[in-house]
């Protein structure tokens, strides 16, 4: 089709220039088709062009102080505009610079993108544009469920999403489901232990909140790339199926794999504007696959001296980000997630501890300059995982387009209410067990900071991701023996969310004791012992 249109254009050119050629049109058409490849190939080399670009931009002089030419008044307006832009950019950058203790906030690679379709954007919309925020979040990443004494916290859930090895709990065991129970035998109940309540204590003053409204941010998932990528694929007839027969198709997701040693795979979700990178497992060594016995597995376990220093782990993550042009503009300085050290410190038999193969580096998400936390109290953001064994980055998670709408919502101001929820453990523990009549352990909190908390809300199959203003109270002191893994206690400030929080307050949720094991039925055949 393309060649035909070009051929027609050439003929039209010729006929316009010399109408006498009309008598020789058929002859011309035949010749054009046969000799089309006679044009010399210029051997255009994309790699050369890219390398040349890098070299040229490397010598591009830095912006010099603009000289105001009073003769050409037009330039003054351009200078004033440029100055305004410089001020607008430099103030938040300077704030970040000094806030991070003098270290720049992560590498910002020049990825050469002509157009950043994922450019950060916050679009302000009318107040309460997101509707009711008061229905329950169902599968929040950080919600704690169950009793306060349980050791399974959202910290572990976060860690296990990264690597099951990072939990560091070691050991195994427990009753096999197949054990035979003979008639008349019962397994003794473990002795009843009084449940422990944790009281989170803040002795300072809640800061005065002067605003009656604050912005709530909702991440936009507009599938902006869905129809742009590889649209040519939709017209292809693969032989097995004709894709062009699909009406108005869009590309929803795409995965690519590096076919090289230590290569990676990238998965792009165009609908949710979400990107993740993982190991291309076929290209990474897996020595455990060669193990036949326990000693082999034990020999592969890392030791404490194998764990890299935080600086080295961060350097590996930063290098990976630069290499793949990962845009870190919307994130704060890198921090190593050392949650595994909390479990290590609590472990009695440290020699049997499973040191993590993979350690996660967190680049905290910033929206409008504010840090964003999960309901569990952990910071949320971009994670780059680093293999301690290979000293290489293994994957990237939480990389998504930073486009938001912001809408103002009413803010709660009653300090007594805020402190009451703080005492119970904040938003993450609002449905948890709490009783001030039993054993209570006090956990000391520091002064709160106004930040944002990530809230997920579901409406049928659709989900939406909100960032809600909240007070974040850092946990500063945990008594020995207390199983508290939160680093921060979160109290959202949007007033209409408090109806949900109130449901968890005032009432006591009693822990239920385990039922006795009943004898097996007579016709159950015993199972071979394990």
């Amino acid at each position, binding site marked *: 089709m393309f060649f035909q249109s070009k051929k027609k254009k*050439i003929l039209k050119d010729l006929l316009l220039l010399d109408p006498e050629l009309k008598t020789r049109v058929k002859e011309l058409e035949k010749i054009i088709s046969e000799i089309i490849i006679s044009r010399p190939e210029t051997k*255009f080399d994309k790699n050369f062009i890219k390398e040349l670009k890098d070299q040229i931009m490397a010598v591009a002089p830095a912006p010099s102080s603009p000289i105001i030419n009073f003769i050409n008044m037009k330039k003054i307006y351009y200078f004033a505009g440029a100055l305004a832009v410089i001020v607008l950019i430099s103030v938040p950058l300077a704030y970040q610079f000094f806030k991070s203790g003098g270290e720049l906030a992560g590498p910002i690679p020049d990825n050469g993108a002509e157009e950043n379709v994922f450019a950060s954007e916050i679009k302000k919309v009318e107040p309460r544009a997101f509707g009711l925020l008061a229905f329950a979040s169902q599968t929040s990443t950080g919600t704690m469920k169950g009793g306060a004494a349980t050791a399974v916290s959202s910290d572990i859930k976060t860690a296990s999403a990264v690597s099951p090895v990072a939990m560091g709990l070691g050991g195994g065991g427990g009753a096999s489901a197949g054990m035979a129970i003979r008639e008349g035998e019962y397994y003794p109940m473990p002795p009843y232990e009084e449940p422990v309540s944790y009281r989170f204590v803040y002795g300072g003053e809640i800061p005065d909140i002067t605003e009656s409204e604050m912005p709530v941010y909702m991440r936009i998932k507009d599938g902006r790339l869905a129809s742009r990528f590889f649209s040519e694929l939709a017209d292809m007839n693969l032989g097995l199926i004709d894709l062009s027969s699909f009406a108005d198709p869009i590309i929803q997701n795409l995965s690519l794999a590096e076919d090289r040693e230590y290569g990676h795979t990238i998965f792009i979700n165009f609908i949710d504007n979400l990107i993740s990178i993982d190991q291309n497992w076929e290209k990474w060594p897996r020595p455990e696959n060669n193990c036949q016995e326990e000693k082999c597995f034990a020999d592969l376990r890392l030791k404490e001296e194998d764990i890299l220093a935080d600086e080295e782990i961060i350097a590996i993550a930063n290098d990976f980000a630069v290499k793949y042009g990962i845009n870190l503009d919307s994130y704060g300085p890198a921090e190593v997630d050392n949650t595994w050290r909390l479990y290590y410190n609590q472990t009695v038999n440290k020699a049997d501890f499973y040191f993590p193969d993979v350690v996660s580096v967190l680049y905290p998400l910033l929206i409008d300059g504010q840090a964003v936390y999960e309901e569990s109290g952990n910071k949320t953001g971009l994670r780059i995982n680093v293999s301690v064994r290979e000293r290489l980055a293994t994957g990237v998670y939480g990389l998504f387009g930073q486009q938001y709408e912001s809408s103002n919502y009413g803010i709660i101001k009653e300090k007594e209410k805020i402190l009451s929820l703080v005492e119970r453990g904040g938003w993450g523990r609002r449905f948890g067990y709490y009783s001030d009549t039993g054993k209570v352990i006090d956990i000391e909190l520091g002064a709160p900071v106004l930040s944002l908390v990530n809230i997920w809300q579901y409406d049928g199959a659709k989900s939406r991701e909100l960032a809600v203003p909240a007070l974040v109270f850092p946990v500063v002191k945990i008594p020995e023996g207390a199983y508290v893994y939160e680093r921060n206690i979160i109290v959202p400030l949007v007033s209409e969310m408090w109806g949900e929080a109130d449901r968890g307050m005032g009432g006591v949720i009693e822990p239920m004791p385990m039922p006795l094991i009943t004898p097996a039925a007579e016709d159950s055949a015993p199972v071979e012992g394990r």
Partner: protein
Amino acid sequence: MKNEKDIIIKCQSGDLSEFARLYDAYARKIYDFIYYKTHHKETAEDLTSKTFFRAIKGFSSFNPESGSFSSWLFQIARNSVIDHYRSFKNEIDLEDVWDLAVDSGVERDFDACEKLKKVEKYIASLEREQREIIIMRVWQGMSYAEISAILGKTEAASKMVFARAISKLRESMPLELLALLLIIWE
């Protein structure tokens, strides 16, 4: 591309970070333009490199009032090619490979030579401006608007030059070779 004029203003105010956009818009065109004047990949790459380095270093000397950026950039490219060939034979007014005899000994890509065997003598017989317009229009697929911006002419004048070049070729070339020239490759 973002408004070229805005980019040029920003570059001239001292911030050359936007020069990358101009580079992206013109790199291929400049390279092809030079290749059709040299018929040698390495030479074309070398001269493309020189063109852009001269452009970025001399950007402050570009006067938007006196012509388009493309005209200025292509003139730098043209001068780079002239400088290159004058290093071979200083006493002869050389502008590009078309001015050289086939057996001049200057390096050229073999496959380009083979493809151009039939048409070379006819294209070489054109005036330099005619040859440039023919190549830009036919092989590089540029519009008359682009060509006129590069040459600093009006569109009508560019079309007139193109028409005269075609007429000259029709007088000297067999019809099938005329059609060869008028294939636009994409």
